[in-house]
């Protein structure tokens, strides 16, 4: 299964995806919540890496939407944000984990490895 990366920053998407791929994970990148929801209609990733501040559909709106859909409600979400310091700042995102930017590759891989197994 792949990792779904939802981030409006192209460089960030690319860097996240490359880091994961170098460890044998597969990833799909989208740039906002709406695209993520479209993707989730057809696929079920092992984990979603979710940025919070994005145009069209931000992380909070996106998080509110799939929670109502039983098909995707069970997919773990790792929130990656530049605005995180304490989890309580982000309200009830029901996230499986929180990663604060700037984040280290080690921390990222450790968090993802909890939910996804590398293909090779």
């Amino acid at each position, binding site marked *: 299964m792949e990792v779904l990366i939802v981030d409006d*920053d192209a*460089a960030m998407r690319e860097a996240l995806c490359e880091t994961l791929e170098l460890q044998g994970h597969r990833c799909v990148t989208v740039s906002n919540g709406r695209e993520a929801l479209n993707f989730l209609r057809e696929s079920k990733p092992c984990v979603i890496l979710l940025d919070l501040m994005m145009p069209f559909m931000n992380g909070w709106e996106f998080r509110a939407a799939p929670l109502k859909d039983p098909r995707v409600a069970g997919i773990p979400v790792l929130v*990656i944000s*530049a605005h995180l310091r*304490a989890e309580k700042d982000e309200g009830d995102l029901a996230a499986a984990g929180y990663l604060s*930017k700037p984040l*280290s*590759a080690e921390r990222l891989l450790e968090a993802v490895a909890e939910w996804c197994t590398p293909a090779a």
Partner: protein
Amino acid sequence: MTRQSPDRARPAWLRYGFAGAAAAASLLATRAFYPVLQATPFLLGFVALLGAGWFGGGGPSFAVTLLVAAGTLFLIPSPHAPVITSAEAFIRLLLFVGAGGLASLLQRRLWASRRELLIALEESRRSRQVAEDAMIELARLAAIVESSDDAIVGKNLEGIVTAWNAAAERLFGYKAEEMIGHPISRLMTEGHKNDMRQILTRISRGERVEHFETIRLRKDGSEVAVSLSVSPVKDPSGRVVGAAKIARDVSERKGLEAERERLLREAQRAIEVRDAFLSVAGHEFRTPLAALSLMFHNWGLRARTEGDPKTVERIDKARQQVERLARLTEDLLDIGRISAGRLDLRREPTDLTAVVREAAERMEESATRSGSPVEIDAPGPVVGEWDRSRLDQVVTNLLTNAVKFGPGRPILVRVGRENGFAELSVIDGGIGIAPADQERIFERFERAVSERSYAGIGLGLWITRQLVNAHGGSISVESEPGRGSNFLVRLPAEAS
């Protein structure tokens, strides 16, 4: 000058001596002219007693009476031929003594009256003196009141003006004759009519009203900010009969205060804008920093796989710079958090010794590179309820400074426990800090060294102190220029 009463002015010996002399003189004269005075042998004695009475009062007069009576009996015309030779002569003697006694009583009464009169005169003179002194004092006070720079106004309990000095004329624009006898309420603005009632209520209770700031109306209709001090005026029985008011024009001070307030608001607003900018900028830096950090990580990994040590080394250096940039960004973000009181601590049981060892290990490479090996002197775990990452920030900041300002000198880190406090000492042998700078270095954007010689934005120690304070601890420094510094952090710790 005081005038003495007449009997005090003439001593008794003089008055009675005079009486004796007068009696003797009258007897001698009567004896000498006895043939002429035979029919009235007491005539000269009577004159003598009147004279003694005039000179010495009732007592000497009566003494003369007795002396003359006795002398006449035995001496006139001669001791051997007494004057009392018949019942008629004896009656004459008795009449003289009676008349002399009566005259003496009258003299005594006259003297008492004279004395009372003199005392009354003296009292009247003193009263006049007191009145004169009071008038002089009053004139002096009036001159002070008149020359005062503060407006001084007298009024009765009905609020009718009774006194109005020159400064009051200048302040309010009304002449004394326009105000005296008129209600003070003409100085009140619509919004401050209640002031006077409040003030008069307090005054009638005998209280003073001090530095009461309000607005008054000038004759020309303009308003003036005044500070009033009002005291009750009491009559001699202690009853409050009016009020004395001192009014000072505080418009200028008010204006300055308003200006100061405005500047303060502007400064606060500027700080808020700055902090908001730092916060936004800091957050905006985080995403590219995160991307850069991951990219360098990935490139490094590839270079290692491809066996390109030179590239690996370059990429590691680049990663260190990204990490430094990330730390600076976090420092900038901390300004906003601390200023806004949003520094949330995630307290958990944390071992200070472990935090110190981890930080020292992380910094080992840079410390060794600058020739400052870190030695740790710790007895064992020192545990407290602290925010681990913030504590790490404190230790890292102090270690970074020790490396930065003491290259080539070893660094000693001591961890211990003292009276319920965990103690952390970071001791370097670096350039040291002058006494005048030792408190300043904990301020925001303050640096004790030239920015041409040492990089940095002057936030590290300020943030360190804020973090330590947020934990309920304290940080201090002992230092001597040229000999190094000892930064001592004390944090409330759990009992071991």
